[in-house]
C-alpha cells in the first residue's frame, strides 16, 4: 500500500544565463534545458541532472547541499536564494537561473562570493579585538551567560551566501556598501564580551554612508535570507546605537 500522493510529473524548462568571462569568445546568453521533474526535486538535483545528461560544461557551485555552506546561492526567477534549499515544486515550469549580481563572475552560475566576503571581513575587522598582548590558549575561557551565547549564535548563523547583497538595492548602486552581512557581523562582535571594542570604534567602521547610514531600509535582505536572520531588527538596532555614539 503506497499512500504517498504522486504528483503529476512536469517537464521543467531551465533558462540558464551562461557566460565565461575567462573565454574571450564567450558572449552572455541564455540556454534552455528541459528535464522531467522528480519528486522532492531541488534545484541542486536538477542542475546536476542537466550537467550529467545535457551539458557537462555548465558551471555552478555546491558543497554541502544542505543550506550550510552558502555556495549555491543564485538568482532564481528574479530572487536570490539557495539552489539546494529550493524545491522545484514551489516554482513554475519555467525556471530562470542567473548568477548573483555584485559579485565577481567565475562562470555561468558560479560567482566569487569568497573574495567579496574576505574583503568585507578585513575592512570591518570582523574578529575579536583583545587589547591583551598575548592570549593564553591553554587557559579556560571565562564563562558566558547562556542567553548571551544564544544571541551571539543567532547572528553567527550567517553563512555568507551573498543573497542579502544580491537582494540589496543599495549594494547594486554603491560598490562600497557593506550590506546586511557586514552590519550583521558588526552586531555579532558588538555582543561578544571578549571583543573589547566600544561603540565609538564600531562607528569608525560603519558610521558612514558605506555603512549603516547608507542603508535605504528596502529590506530585501531580510526577505531573502535563507537562514532567516533577523536582519531588519539588527540593522535598526545598529543604526540606533551608531546614532547615539
Amino acid at each position, binding site marked *: 500500500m503506497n499512500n504517498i500522493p504522486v504528483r503529476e510529473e512536469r517537464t521543467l524548462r531551465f533558462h540558464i544565463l551562461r557566460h565565461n568571462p575567462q573565454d574571450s569568445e564567450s558572449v552572455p546568453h541564455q540556454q534552455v534545458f528541459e528535464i522531467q521533474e522528480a519528486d522532492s526535486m531541488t534545484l541542486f538535483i536538477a542542475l546536476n541532472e542537466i550537467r550529467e545528461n545535457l551539458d557537462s560544461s555548465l558551471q555552478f557551485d555546491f558543497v554541502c547541499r544542505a543550506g550550510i555552506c552558502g555556495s549555491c546561492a543564485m*538568482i532564481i526567477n*528574479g*530572487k536570490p536564494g539557495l539552489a539546494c534549499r529550493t524545491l522545484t515544486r514551489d516554482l513554475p515550469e519555467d525556471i530562470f537561473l542567473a548568477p548573483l*549580481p555584485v559579485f565577481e563572475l567565475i562562470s555561468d552560475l558560479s560567482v566569487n562570493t569568497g573574495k567579496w566576503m574576505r574583503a568585507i571581513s578585513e575592512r570591518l575587522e570582523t574578529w575579536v579585538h583583545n587589547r591583551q598582548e598575548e592570549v593564553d590558549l591553554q587557559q579556560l575561557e571565562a564563562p558566558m551567560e547562556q542567553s548571551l551565547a544564544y544571541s551571539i549564535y543567532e547572528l553567527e548563523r550567517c553563512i555568507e551566501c551573498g543573497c542579502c547583497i544580491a*537582494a540589496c*538595492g543599495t549594494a*547594486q*548602486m*554603491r560598490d562600497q556598501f557593506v550590506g546586511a552581512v557586514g552590519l550583521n557581523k558588526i552586531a555579532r562582535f558588538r555582543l561578544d564580551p571578549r571583543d573589547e571594542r566600544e561603540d565609538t570604534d564600531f*562607528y*569608525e567602521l560603519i*558610521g*558612514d*554612508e558605506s555603512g549603516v*547610514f*547608507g*542603508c*535605504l*531600509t*528596502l*529590506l*530585501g535582505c531580510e*526577505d531573502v535570507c535563507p537562514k532567516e536572520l*533577523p536582519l*531588519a*531588527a539588527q*540593522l*535598526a*538596532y545598529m*543604526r*540606533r546605537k*551608531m*546614532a547615539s*555614539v
Partner: protein
Amino acid sequence: MLTSASSSGRGRKELKRAGSRLVASVESKSLVRKSSRWAAWLDVLQGVSGLVLLLFIWTHMIMVSSILISKDAMFVVSRMFEGVYVFDEPHPVLVSMVAVVIFCLLVIHGIIALRKAPSSYREYRQFITHANRFKHTDTNLWLLQVITGFILMFLATAHIYQMFSQPGNIGPYASADRIWTNTVWPLYLVLLFAVELHGGVGLYRWLLKWGWFGLANNRQQLKVAKSAITGFFLILGLLTLAAYIKLGIEHENHAGERYRPVSFMQQMENP
C-alpha cells in the same frame, strides 16, 4: 607606510635603488581622520524633518477639508490661522511666515534625502534593473518615494510660493476661485497624490529604519496601517478638492468676491 618600509631591510634596499632617502616622518593627528558624526546626524535630521513635514501636511489636509462641513467652518479655520482669535484682526503675514518655515524644512529634507537617490545614470540603471528583476514591494516603494520626492520638490515649491505671496487669499470663495477660475486644481491633484504617497511610505520606512519597540518585526501590520492612512487622506483630499471645484464653478461669475458669513461678522462687531 614610509616608516615601516624603511625599517625593514627590503624597504631600505628599494629606497636606495630608487636613489631617494627618507627625509622625515611626521605623525600628524589631523591626518588620522575620525569618522564624522554628521553621517548619523544627517540620517536623524532626514527623518525628523520628514516627520514634521508629514504632521504638517496631515494637519493641513484636515484643516482645508473643513470646506466639507460648511463654508463658515472653512472661513473660521482660515481666519484662525491669520490670528484673528489672538490679535482680534487678521494678519495674513502669519501664513507667509509658516510658508517660509515649511519651505526651509522642504529644502533641508530634500537636500539630505537627495544623497540617497541614484546620483548617476549608471546607479539609476543598476537600481531599475534590480527592481525589475526582484519584483519586491519595499524596493519598488522606495523608487516611488524618489519619484514623488522629485515631484514635490518642484510642485510643492510652486504651491508654497503662492501661499507666501498671497496669504490673504485663503477662504471659501478665494480658495475655490483660485482652484477653479485660476486653474490651480491640476497642481493640487498631482500634489495630493505625490504628498500622501511620499509621506505614507516615508513614515512606514522611517519606523522600520529605526525599529523602536520592536517595530522592525511588525512589517506587515505597519504596511496595512500605512496603506489605510494613505487611503484615508487620499479620499479626504479628493473629496475636498471636488468640493472646492464645485464651489469654484458655482462662484465663477463672481470670482474675486470674498466670502462674508453674516453670523460671523455679527459676532465680530458685537462681541
